[in-house]
């Protein structure tokens, strides 16, 4: 019976596939962090920076959003990163996904900043605050909270993009799916298995982000149009 063979292959592959979940989680957390650490300053530079700086950020965003991640992985892993001494496939994957995510995350934060009333910055200046302090203590605390729904989108997209790291041989879920499919000749059963794992990861991640959103909510403060 074919179903039984497929089921046995799936059960046998379970520990190995769960190991892949660990790799996927590391990639995802790494890329989200890199994207956040780069994306927030990028957003600030784009909104508040001098025209040249703002245009430079625009160029960065345009480049990383415009080139498919698959192409970037080949360029960075085989071409650019070896030149600066980075050899590891995991690091290359986190850099590529992180830089791309930074371009998307910067646009999420930029949108949130621009949805705040411009008078807030003027009022802060009138109180004698420097622009840097005002952005740090008044603008960003509001903008970052407003960005969380956008982030849960970014989280689920990045999770699925992490499967592309298979082409540079990072042993994440999709690479392991292919390897088990090749060994057991059960490609459809293994694809179904991978789909279930990705679904669970997406669900858990989005629940966590929702929890954070509720946790950091300021009572009585809400932005019209936010989800």
């Amino acid at each position, binding site marked *: 019976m074919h179903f039984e063979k497929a089921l046995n292959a799936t059960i046998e592959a379970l520990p190995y596939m769960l190991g892949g979940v660990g790799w996927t989680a590391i990639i995802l957390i790494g890329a989200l962090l890199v994207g956040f650490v780069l994306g927030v300053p990028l957003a600030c530079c784009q909104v508040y920076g001098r025209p040249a700086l703002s245009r430079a950020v625009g160029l960065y965003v345009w480049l990383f959003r415009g080139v498919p991640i698959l192409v970037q992985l080949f360029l960075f*892993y085989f071409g650019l990163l070896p030149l600066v001494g980075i*050899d590891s496939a995991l690091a290359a994957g986190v850099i590529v996904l992180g830089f791309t995510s930074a371009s998307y995350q910067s646009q999420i934060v930029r949108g949130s900043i621009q949805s705040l009333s411009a008078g807030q910055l003027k009022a802060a200046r009138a109180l004698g605050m420097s622009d840097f302090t005002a952005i740090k203590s008044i603008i960003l605390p509001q903008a970052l909270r407003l960005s969380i729904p956008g982030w849960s989108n970014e989280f689920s997209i990045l999770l699925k993009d992490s499967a592309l790291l298979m082409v*540079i*041989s990072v042993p994440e879920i999709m690479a392991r799916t292919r390897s088990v499919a090749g060994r057991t000749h059960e490609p459809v059963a293994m694809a179904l298995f991978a789909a279930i794992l990705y679904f669970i990861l997406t669900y858990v991640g989005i629940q966590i982000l929702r929890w954070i959103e509720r946790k950091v909510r300021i009572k009585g403060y809400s932005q019209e149009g936010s989800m």
Partner: protein
Amino acid sequence: MAKKFMALVASVMVSLMLISGAIASDKVVVNGIDFGFPPFGFVDKDGKPAGFDVEAMNWIAKEMGFTVKHQPTDWDGIIPALNAGKIDCIASGMSATAERAKIVNFAIPYYSVTQVMVVRGDEKMDLAAFMKSGRKIGVQRGTNTFKLLTELKAAGANIEIVQYDSTDLAMQDLPIGRIDASGMDSSIAYEVMKGQSYKLGGTFDAAPENYAYAVRKADTELLETLNMGLKKLMADPYWEELKNKWEIH
């Protein structure tokens, strides 16, 4: 602001380099193996590289006095990985084609494959009749089998070629009738037919091709070492033992 930003970028770069743990490898030969190409090279259920080529390389390494590390590598990127220095050789059921020989060097051949057609167990038609029938034959795109079928079709064979991402996917469609036959290397055919109701529908009239280990063009020393090791292995009784163990016909 710009200075702070640059410092941030720099610190992210540094921490990533730490994650990567830039290991400088000393005299370890890294062998790239295909994720899933049993019985030649694959990743076993514990995630360890296994198969005929893996064990053959282990024997050669021991005999020739070097350390070998098997690195599972995606097939699509395996030659770029070799030429970028991520791996040092490919011992993973690779066909030594003239096209590949332009960008890598091949060691002496150790196995030869033919192109075959696999059909359902109850199929009545033989290869010659099939090639005039207008029926569908599945094949993995980009393979030598695909090239052969295209040539046969251009020469007048009446078949419909259906391309797949892998032979395994073609084999999903064979029993349900989306295709009537599946073309592939003989080495894979024996593997996919194990425990299934398929049979060989015939062998194509084409020159057999050879499997060989690949190394970088510049690595003449490694090529010599591998050639010498292979010759020793093929003269050793262990060679037959290995072939029997992995059921390599």
